[in-house]
């Protein structure tokens, strides 16, 4: 039989032994964990941060605003189409003095104004979200690709570690999406960005550049559209006030237009591209 003092000593020694084992186990786990973290970090570095969560959120919001605008306009544009059809079917072209045709023309004008108003209301939101996306991307591109990279590192980022055919398939579609709905375009952008985690940095750099340049163009386009809406709204309001404009009134309206919007003829022409500067698709001499 063992004495209580010996029992306590044995128990204490055992406890110390367990503690040592536990300490060893924890240390091993910690070292292993540190190794895994280091390996993961080294495998992922350098990571370029071109799409912070704010950009992803901005893209989603822009898509939603665009969809709302389209939904709002759809009904009005449908109505406008019907009225125009009726106008043509009633052979109102050239029969402006007819009371029915005048009424129809005013109705068309009113619907047109309604459409402009909806656009006028929605475009500032659109402009705001587009600009937010553009500014966030601009900052990312400037810092990550412009200041942190040399042309050689940029090339290495684009080419990626595996420049195989599988990487080629992962490349996002490049610019030139005419004919696509605005909301659909932003939806596609959002999906591309949201799922971009699985792709390499090379896709992200191209994608960010593509979206940024598109945002630049969209931003300019929205600004021009807003100016155009203001002009068209005033024109239509004049039409509604005076009814059908007589030749005598056209001169007055022309004067008002030239005062408010300047003379259209005096607008400077935009130079076209120099001959031969249009990018040609490559045709190999071996191609038959």
């Amino acid at each position: 039989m063992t004495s209580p003092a010996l029992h306590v000593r044995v128990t204490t020694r055992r406890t110390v032994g367990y503690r040592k084992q536990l300490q060893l186990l924890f240390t091993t786990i910690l070292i292993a964990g540190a190794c895994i973290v280091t390996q993961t970090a080294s495998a992922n570095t350098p990571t370029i941060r071109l799409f912070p969560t704010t950009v992803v959120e901005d893209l989603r919001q822009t898509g939603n605003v665009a969809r709302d605008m389209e939904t709002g306009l759809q009904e009005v544009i449908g109505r406008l189409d019907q009225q125009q059809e009726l106008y043509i079917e009633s052979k109102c072209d050239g029969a402006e003095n007819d009371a029915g045709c005048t009424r129809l023309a005013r109705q068309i004008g009113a619907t047109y104004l309604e459409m402009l108003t909806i656009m006028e209301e929605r475009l500032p939101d659109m402009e705001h979200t587009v600009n937010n996306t553009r500014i966030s991307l601009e900052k990312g591109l400037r810092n990550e690709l412009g200041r942190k990279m040399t042309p050689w590192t940029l090339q290495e980022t684009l080419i990626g570690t595996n420049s195989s055919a599988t990487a080629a398939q992962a490349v996002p579609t490049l610019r030139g999406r005419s004919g696509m709905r605005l909301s659909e375009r932003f939806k596609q952008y959002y999906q591309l960005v949201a799922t971009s985690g699985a792709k390499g940095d090379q896709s992200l750099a191209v994608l960010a550049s593509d979206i940024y340049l598109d945002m630049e163009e969209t931003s300019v386009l929205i600004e021009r559209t807003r100016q155009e809406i203001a002009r068209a709204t005033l024109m239509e309001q004049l039409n509604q006030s005076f009814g059908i404009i007589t030749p005598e009134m056209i001169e007055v309206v022309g004067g008002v237009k030239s005062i408010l919007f300047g003379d259209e003829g005096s607008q400077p022409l935009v130079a076209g591209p120099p001959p031969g500067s249009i990018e040609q698709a490559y045709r190999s001499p071996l191609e038959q």
Partner: protein
Amino acid sequence: MKKSPIRQTTLLAAVICLAAVLASCASTQPTCASPQTRNLDAAIQATQASLSGGCQAEFDRYYDDLLTIAEGDPKPENKRAFSEFLVWSTDEGLLSTRQAEDYYNRYFNVKFMSLKGDYNNCSHTCPNKQKVLFDMERELSEKERGLLNVSLDNEGYYRADRLYQEVELVLEATCTACAAAR
């Protein structure tokens, strides 16, 4: 016996002429003719002989000749032949390692040597964007020759072509972003 002065003069003139002929023979420039064979390996051997025989100043022409010969018999192994020839040129002191890398990569690698640079894109590449793109376009035609026409590496060439388009797009966006900060 005393020699006549005329005879002595004639002898002296003959010696001078002989010396002149020998001297002219010694300073004759090597012909540096292009390799005549259509076989790449034989052409490389002939080129190596010429380059070792004092024609090193004609290196560019010889390299071009070899590419033309290789275009006549395109195959993936040609890459290795050119690589070995360039390594030999470095070993012989005809080219520096950087020059050899440049000669090889311009023709046989997807990456563009025109994008070599130690400064960041905002400060250096963007102000020279047009020149950089022009140099890349020229290099792409060299890659067409090396990758496509000499090595039959279609995939490599089309990757280079796409890389050129991607760089053009990314640089346009990056440089616009850099300019917006000013």
